[in-house]
């Protein structure tokens, strides 16, 4: 195969790490944002956030070829973002569980900062994947971070609306934060998509262009409208916020799954010049699958 083909090295298990790790770390961050307004409410969200991150890492463990050597993942924090992610998780999970057991702002806020670092590591893992053009773009970092933050906010809204978080009143600052996160994801998505033009194989571009409309409408416009409705009509806020949270969460997960599994065409091969061959003349280069 000369033209870019879909990468088959990472499957749904690897995608699961980005899906659950992003949502989990985002949820811990959203919990920290909501904490000043609802100090009693953080426990369940923190536990769920930690479990999601652990689930993502467990999926990666199932993916690696030599699972009994998993400890070797810690050997290269000097240059490898996968190592850094693992080290960050080692700090993040106990810290989050400690915050769950002893719910104080003094533990939740540091946990949120480490969660943000974890999210950043995930973004850098993709950015460093030089063989996959859609992943290695500069804008991938911001997009993965804002996606994780948005998923976390959506999940927090869902937990609130379904009563899994014991909150006395609707945290308006969190709603504002959720809207800002959704807006941030939209902005980084547009920027990233623009960056892909000419910098990614046509097949990858096609996958993302096809996905763009539903991602923008279902994952951004609709959730924001629903949040505004919930704010204006408190009587129906629970159900509306639950739907909004689900849309935000699932759209983010769908995007990441597509990014890892469907829009992940590898670089492919290219030559700058075709050779002269005997008495002939050299010709123009070839880069199949890029135009």
């Amino acid at each position, binding site marked *: 195969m*000369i033209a870019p083909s879909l*990468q088959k*090295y*990472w499957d749904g298990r*690897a995608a699961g790490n980005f899906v659950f790790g992003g949502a989990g770390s985002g949820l811990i961050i959203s919990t920290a944002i909501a904490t000043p307004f609802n100090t009693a409410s953080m426990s369940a969200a923190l536990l769920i956030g930690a479990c999601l991150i652990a689930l993502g890492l467990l999926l*990666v463990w199932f*993916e*690696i*070829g*030599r*699972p009994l*050597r*998993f400890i*070797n*993942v*810690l*050997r*290269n924090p000097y*240059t*490898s*973002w*996968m*190592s850094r992610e*693992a080290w960050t998780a080692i700090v993040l999970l106990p810290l989050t569980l400690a915050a769950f057991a002893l719910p104080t702002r003094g533990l939740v806020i540091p946990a949120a900062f480490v969660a943000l670092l974890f999210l950043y590591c995930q973004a850098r*893992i993709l950015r*460093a*994947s*030089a*063989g*996959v053009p859609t*992943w290695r773009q500069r804008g991938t970092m911001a997009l993965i971070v804002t996606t994780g933050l948005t998923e976390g906010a959506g999940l927090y809204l869902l937990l609130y609306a379904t009563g899994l978080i014991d909150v006395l009143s609707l945290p308006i600052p969190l709603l504002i934060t959720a809207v800002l996160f959704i807006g941030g994801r939209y902005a980084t998505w547009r920027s990233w998509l623009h960056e892909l033009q000419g910098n990614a194989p046509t097949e990858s571009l096609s996958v993302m262009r096809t996905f763009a409309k539903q991602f923008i409408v279902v994952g951004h416009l609709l959730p924001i409208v629903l949040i505004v409705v919930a704010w204006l009509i408190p009587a129906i806020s629970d159900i509306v916020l639950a739907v909004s949270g689900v849309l935000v969460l699932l759209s983010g997960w769908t995007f990441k799954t597509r990014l890892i599994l469907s829009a*992940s065409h*590898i*670089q492919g*091969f*290219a*030559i*700058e*010049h*075709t*050779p*002269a*061959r*005997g008495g002939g003349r*050299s*010709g123009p280069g*070839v880069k*199949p699958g890029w135009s």
Partner: protein
Amino acid sequence: MTRYVMVADLNRCVGCQTCTAACKHANATTPGVQWRRVLDIESGEYPDVRRTFVPVGCMHCSEPPCMEVCPSTATRQRDDGLVTIDYDLCIGCGYCMVACPYQARFKVTSIGKAYKNGHMSHEQSREHRERLNVAQKCTFCIDRIDAGLAAGLTPGEDVDATPACVNSCIADALTFGDIEDSDSHVSQLLREQRSFRMHEELGTEPGFYYLWEGAS
């Protein structure tokens, strides 16, 4: 300093895949794994069509993205530029595979066989279980280079210290040697002929050069 590189003359390569076969023979790679392969690229539109044969494999980059991302430090780079994999350290996470822009890395989960009805005797005698479930790739026949150097030979000049693919090339299209040595064959070729490296824009500084216009 020494920096081993390979030069492929696209004007000479006829796409016979002898290098591919020689590599498989020398390194006993399992079916489906080709550390050295030759692409067959058709381009242009009738009547101006072209067919180009392009040998590819691990480019032993000066700035290898595979090494940077490797979480286990299994992938390393020697002082002579060769990029290596320690099969005993590798966890088989596949990160290096998505980081390599040259599709040079492989991971297999079982010892392959050429035919359905069991392994052939030579497959059994040369199976490499240490390569199962971990990353593997072209080594530039590192064992031949090291053995040759220990015997006082010069890689790229002496057959016993030169990669199998280079030795086997029927068209003399592949050349190996030290680019830091101005008298080496590769330095001479790169001085006298125009060349390019694949995906140079990615900043990997590949150690694999392609000659494309013939001697000036």
